[in-house]
């Protein structure tokens, strides 16, 4: 019998593992994908080898790459991009770590309060989450992004269109700023050299500005795992959880089992209420099924898998909100072509951003040619010059929205270094019909697969208006930066930021977990990943908020089930790059 079993080692799960292991609990993490213990050997910076959604190292699929990826059924056009393996989707994230917009929380009474998704706010105030933000920001750690050519161009363009620069972590007005990133700042030769032999640790520390965040970070070469530049959880929280005995006074090292796909959560009836007692998982390499009990079970399998696991386990769902209210930030892409070098393939995935409270965010991104070409092809507006699929929207960009093909695509990609790609991250509404269910049609080895519905075209009027506003704003910034040709792709849902499918709320008729992160209808069952978020946060990238919330939920678990006391406001966190952690990581060969 474990104290705590955590399902999924992605953005959220390892945070709970680290926090509770530091309190001395016996914690087991179960991860469906591979361990990814040797990224320097096993990964490359190549786009197909890394990001091919069917066969790449970074896919949602078994660690045995000769096997097909895991399937998810889409009932509406969309594209999935979540990863399996220790670190989950943070393996390929950019590390952008903005705080949520205060307007997404209960009790917000700013002038623009009505501009947010008021029906589905967080059940507590922004102020209450602030200490947890600070704790996570120090642990990861989160730092101000360094500037390369791409960012400098973006900042100058924002100034040119009259925007202000934000210099605080809290978002309060329309403004641009350097990202607060979970990426270590460049040190030594990093950022100053392009010669591989000069970029090994310790001659280089932190981000080498290689431009390959999306293929997983293993820079600088030779650095201990917890000193890799990007603070994906495989480089930060997981090493800390596995070495908690070495750096926390009463800590106990957590355990992790990879290639372990949890297929059932077990419950029993305690005092008339369903109570979690343990889980069963399938070893994806051997097919063997294993069960283990725990006093507390934490679901952190991600927004698109938790609802499936819940329903496949026949857990209660009397208000039918399990899987409902999925938000995806209604992404879009607006790309500019420039007559000069923009540095678009260099540096962190994204190091700059602009926030528009009540509407969402825009960020310039660093991506390679295959990724860019494929993403443009996700258009929902047909093919430029041929058909518009009932859309073909006009705005500050050139011509109708749509995917360029043939000579137009080829000429657009002629020089990837002269492009700037803006990601539109919309503050989208929680809507009950956007949901994840177990499929009635398809099963795989792990049970009925997830069936995802997120209908871009019928999103709320506010969501659609926000998306249009941001797309036009992005084109304005690109134009001010000097772009001579701007294409808006108008993509179908790109499921990169997925939130709120098991949302937290006070009202059990439209939420799954209470303000402590515990399920309304199942005791000792907690949720601590993006699915727990109450809404789309106003648009900011979700992981930092998930991690802050998971830290808060860890305290609640400790208080309710293990007679503990909260620690976040009464102590200081240890950074994941602290020497104590480094020594333990190195001596244990992690």
């Amino acid at each position, binding site marked *: 019998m474990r104290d705590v079993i955590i399902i999924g080692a992605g953005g959220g799960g390892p945070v709970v593992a680290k926090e509770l292991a530091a309190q001395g609990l016996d914690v087991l993490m179960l991860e469906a994908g591979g361990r990814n213990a040797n990224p320097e050997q096993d990964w490359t*910076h*190549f*786009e*197909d*080898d890394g990001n*091919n959604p*069917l*066969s790449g190292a970074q896919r949602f*699929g078994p660690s045995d790459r000769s096997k*097909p*990826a895991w*399937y998810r059924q889409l*009932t509406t*056009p969309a594209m999935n991009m979540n990863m399996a393996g220790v670190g989950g989707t943070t393996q390929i994230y950019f590390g952008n770590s903005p705080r949520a917009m205060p307007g997404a929380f209960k009790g917000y009474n700013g002038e623009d309060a009505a501009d947010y998704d008021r029906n589905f706010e967080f059940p507590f105030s922004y102020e209450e989450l602030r200490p947890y933000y600070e704790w996570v920001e120090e642990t990861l750690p989160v*730092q*101000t992004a*360094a*500037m390369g050519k791409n960012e400098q161009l973006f*900042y100058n363009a924002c100034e040119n269109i009259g925007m202000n*620069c934000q*210099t*605080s972590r*809290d978002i309060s007005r329309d403004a641009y*700023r350097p990202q*607060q990133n979970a990426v270590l700042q460049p040190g030594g030769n*990093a*950022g*100053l050299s*392009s010669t*591989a032999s000069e*970029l090994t640790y310790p001659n280089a520390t932190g981000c*080498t*500005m*290689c*431009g390959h965040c999306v293929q997983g970070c293993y820079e*600088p070469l030779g650095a201990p795992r917890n000193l890799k530049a990007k603070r994906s959880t495989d480089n930060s929280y997981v090493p800390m959880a596995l070495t908690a005995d070495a750096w926390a006074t009463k800590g106990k090292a957590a355990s992790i089992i990879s290639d372990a796909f949890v297929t059932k959560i077990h419950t029993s009836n305690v005092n008339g209420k369903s109570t979690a007692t343990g889980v069963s998982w399938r070893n994806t390499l051997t097919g063997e099924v294993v069960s283990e009990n725990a006093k507390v079970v934490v679901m952190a399998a991600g927004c698109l898998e938790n609802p499936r696991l819940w329903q496949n386990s026949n857990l209660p769902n009397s208000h039918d909100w399990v899987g409902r209210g999925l938000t995806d930030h209604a992404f879009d892409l607006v790309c500019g072509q420039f007559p000069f070098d923009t540095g678009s393939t*260099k*540096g962190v995935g994204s190091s700059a951003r602009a926030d528009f409270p009540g509407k969402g965010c825009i960020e310039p991104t660093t991506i*390679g*040619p*295959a990724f*860019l*070409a494929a993403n*443009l*092809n*996700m258009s929902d507006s*047909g*093919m430029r010059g*041929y*058909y518009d*699929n009932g859309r073909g929207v006009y705005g500050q960009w050139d011509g109708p929205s749509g995917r360029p*093909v*043939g*000579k137009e695509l*080829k000429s657009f990609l*002629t020089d*990837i270094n002269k492009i700037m790609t803006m990601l539109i991250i919309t503050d989208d509404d929680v809507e009950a019909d956007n949901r994840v269910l177990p499929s009635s*049609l*398809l099963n795989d080895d792990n049970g009925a697969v997830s069936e995802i519905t997120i209908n871009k075209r019928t999103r709320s009027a506010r969501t659609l208006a926000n998306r249009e506003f941001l797309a036009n704003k992005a084109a304005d910034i690109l134009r001010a930066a000097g772009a001579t040709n701007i294409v808006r792709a108008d993509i*179908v849902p790109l499921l990169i930021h997925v939130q709120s499918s098991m949302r937290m709320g006070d009202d059990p008729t439209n939420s799954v977990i209470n303000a402590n992160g515990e399920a309304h209808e199942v005791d000792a069952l907690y949720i601590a990943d993006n699915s727990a978020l109450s809404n789309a946060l106003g648009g900011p990238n979700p992981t930092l908020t998930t991690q802050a919330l998971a830290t808060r939920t860890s305290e609640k678990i400790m208080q309710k089930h293990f007679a503990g006391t909260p620690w976040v406001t009464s102590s200081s966190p240890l950074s994941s790059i602290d020497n104590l952690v480094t020594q333990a990581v190195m001596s244990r060969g992690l």
Partner: protein
Amino acid sequence: MKKNLPTIKTDGEEESSHFKQRRDFLTRSGIVGAVAAISPMLLASNKTQAGWISNSVIKQVLDAVTLDTFKGVTAFVMPGNDWHSITQGEATWGVGGLAANTDQYLLENLDNYLPWPKDIGNSILSALGGALSESAGSIPISLAILLKPVEVIILNALDKKLDALIGDSEVIPLGHVFSLILNITATIVNPLTINGGHISAFSRLTMSEKAQVFQRLETGEPSISDLIGGKLSAKENAFLPDLMSTFIRSLLQLATFGSMSEWHALDKNTKALNQIPIGWQLSNYLPNGPVEGHDDLLGYWQGRSEIDA
């Protein structure tokens, strides 16, 4: 659930109309063209006799259709100075996606890795076979591909084999299903492409006709889904909208991803490049080869390397 294409009967009035339906299906899907194109090789393999054909031969035929179709797709998204780009009326001076073996890339990925349910491809193929001749109309004699008697024998044998494969729910690789759908739709967009220069009807289309094929499949006006929907089970039908639009988007995404990526130039064992990938040349990506970092650091905006609160 056993699914079969309408079977070819051997004699009588009804039988010959069945045969014609069947023949039309095989023609539209490009299989007749492939047999005509490669039958000398089949004969040389000496394994083909009436009523019997080996799995390797069937694969050879299907691969030929599929690869040619995927060449047509690749030329569409990333044209070059290749024959397929010239046929579509949109070619460029330098090489395009075909130089990166993107046709092979699509075949390998779709056949081996696309995690669609195993028998959905068979169901669709089977429904298509039944539905097409009803709605697409039969192929006029003037457009029919003239086959030598021996090729007719091969075709009939192959047809039986294909039918048996579908009926037994042996999995038809999805790459083949994709290419058959594209070709059948191509012959609806332009019936004259039933016959001509390339193996597949799709590759005989002009750029704007190819776009019409994608439009029909993506937007459903009139859609393949409508065409075959009635022939699938309710559950399979529920899967169709996803299938058709994802199919088109996945295909276009993969074709561009393959064209621009390192796939064809990567030694899978050493994980090193054996040439500068075509896509990198086309986009001036990493002109000095792979890197571990860039000298791109300009400092911190307005000199701020940290903020307090």
